[in-house]
């Protein structure tokens, strides 16, 4: 039920896209909706990369327009419930990777329908009988399940990934195969499919080192599903961020940009079978075996970052190290306790940077500035980190106006409001952007914001204080010269 609600929230918020994007993204369709069979998948190769804690799927597909008219809308189906866990869906032209203009929308279908669709709008309509090679990439969050669900503190962890051997498709697929890239060769279970299904008469999966292949398969109708699952060794934490709030505060007076990130992490790994044993934990620290516990977080920051802090609910966490030099600035954090499966940890980190690295004056426009910051940073882990929700707030100087922004991360909402803090009279203009289902591979993605900061707004702070003190002097002069003596007024000579 929770997943269902979550999917619904994701859908509705995805549909209410920002005004910065010009495309229309609200499409409510009846539950009987079936994409028109305008396309045929001539050849499809799906790669599922399982090396991180979130599967990354890449579908390379040659599509052909089998309709008589040019067609522009290609649909990609997902099972109900799973669409709310899909993030970072991006489409490229495989033959021309620089070509832009592919627009991706979630199509809002009647909530009782079992299938939901992503609608991919091609940059230009594909003429009849023409082919195009698409490369569709997306991540699935919370997709790995530890099996067994409970393990000992130093045990190996195995995770189960269930998927369809046939790629999700709303169209007839002539030829396809699914390749898996696993992190190890330790794969105790993988569903075998009979050779009759395979086009080459082989029994699936075909194993070659860490890669497994299902297929090739001959022509399959739209919506064909063949559920299979693999269970493999993944003795690493499944780090899942429930929420990441990030503040970027720009100060022209202070020549500073202040970053703060508040994380709510949980580890989706297998839970402990017995109680946590401190002795076992201390022993294992000597030989440091792979573990499903999260023990360390590394934040590679921009060069020149300074004044870091690492604080949780209790207070400062002293087990952190900041290595900063000319080439790098790395923040290495050890959480207050190792985070085993099912455990949570919330904390905040922050740091400062000089403004000149991130802010430029716009050429040809006085008083207009352009800011470029990462949309989010967060830890960079070998096993990957996934975030359900990222809320980035850009706090601009007081009086900034005409705000425009652009980012390559898919946003679900944006709002502009006032944030009141020290020495403010009106409050600072703040821009709040929300993205759902983001993975740490997007931590390099930039957010560019332009704003106008007029001369009058720049001097507001000192002039308000100037006015205040002048008022104090004036009042003191008036009060100081009041004659409050008792008795007859003396005439001044």
């Amino acid at each position: 039920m929770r997943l269902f609600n979550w999917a619904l929230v994701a859908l509705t918020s995805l549909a209410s896209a920002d005004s910065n994007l010009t495309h229309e993204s609200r499409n409510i369709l009846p539950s009987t909706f079936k994409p028109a069979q305008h396309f045929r998948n001539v050849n499809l190769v799906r790669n599922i990369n399982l090396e991180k804690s979130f599967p990354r799927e890449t579908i390379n597909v040659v599509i052909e327009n089998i309709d008589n008219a040019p067609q522009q809308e290609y649909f990609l189906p997902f099972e109900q419930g799973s669409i709310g866990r899909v993030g970072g869906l991006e489409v490229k032209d495989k033959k021309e990777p620089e070509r832009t203009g592919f627009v991706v929308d979630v199509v809002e279908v009647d909530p009782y329908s079992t299938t939901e669709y992503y609608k991919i709008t091609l940059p230009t309509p594909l003429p009849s009988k023409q082919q195009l090679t698409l490369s569709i990439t997306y991540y699935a969050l919370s997709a790995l399940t530890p099996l067994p669900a409970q393990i000992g503190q130093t045990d190996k962890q195995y995770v189960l990934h269930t998927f369809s051997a046939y790629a999700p498709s709303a169209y007839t697929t002539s030829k396809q195969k699914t390749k898996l890239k696993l992190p190890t060769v330790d794969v105790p279970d993988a569903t075998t499919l009979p050779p009759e299904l395979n086009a080459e008469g082989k029994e699936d999966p075909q194993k070659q080192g860490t890669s497994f292949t299902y297929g090739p398969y001959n022509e399959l109708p739209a919506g064909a599903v063949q559920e299979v699952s693999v269970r493999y060794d993944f003795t690493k934490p499944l780090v899942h961020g429930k929420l990441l709030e990030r503040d970027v505060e720009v100060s022209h007076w202070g020549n500073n940009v202040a970053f703060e990130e508040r994380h709510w992490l949980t580890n989706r790994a297998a839970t402990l079978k017995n109680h946590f044993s401190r002795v076992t934990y201390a022993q294992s620290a000597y030989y440091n075996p792979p573990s499903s516990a999260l023990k360390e977080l590394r934040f590679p920051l921009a060069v020149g970052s300074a004044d870091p802090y690492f604080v949780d609910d209790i207070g400062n966490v002293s087990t952190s190290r900041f290595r900063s030099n000319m080439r790098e600035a790395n923040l290495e954090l050890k959480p207050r306790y190792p985070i085993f499966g099912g455990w949570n940890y919330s904390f905040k980190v922050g740091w400062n940077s000089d403004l000149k690295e991130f802010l430029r004056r716009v050429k040809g426009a006085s008083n207009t500035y352009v800011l470029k910051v990462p949309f989010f940073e967060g830890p960079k882990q070998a096993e990957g980190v996934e975030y359900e929700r990222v809320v980035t707030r850009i706090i601009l100087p007081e009086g900034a106006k005409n705000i425009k922004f652009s980012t390559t991360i898919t946003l679900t909402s944006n709002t502009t409001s006032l944030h009141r803090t020290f020495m403010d009279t009106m409050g600072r203009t703040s821009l709040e952007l929300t993205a759902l289902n983001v993975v740490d591979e997007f931590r390099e993605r930039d957010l560019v914001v332009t704003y106008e900061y007029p001369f009058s707004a720049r001097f507001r702070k000192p002039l308000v204080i100037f006015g205040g003190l002048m008022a104090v002097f004036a009042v003191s002069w008036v009060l100081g010269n009041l004659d409050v003596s008792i008795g007859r007024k003396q005439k001044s000579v």
Partner: protein
Amino acid sequence: MSVSPLHDIWEASASQPFQPSIGKSLQFTIGATLLFIALVLSGLFGLNNSLKNLPVYGIPASLAFGFGAVYMICAVGVYV
């Protein structure tokens, strides 16, 4: 890979990074000096509390306090 007009604006403005009027290292010195000037001038105004002294001491004292307070709060780490 330029993907939006705003990225182009960023690239086009590469020769104009933000130039602060006062660098971070000078903020404390400037702030402290201005606040000290404000204190002295306020004291002088207090000694001779007259209408003539309001522009002579009051205005410079207020200006020094206004800018001094802004730089001092930045110097102690509250970047306003």
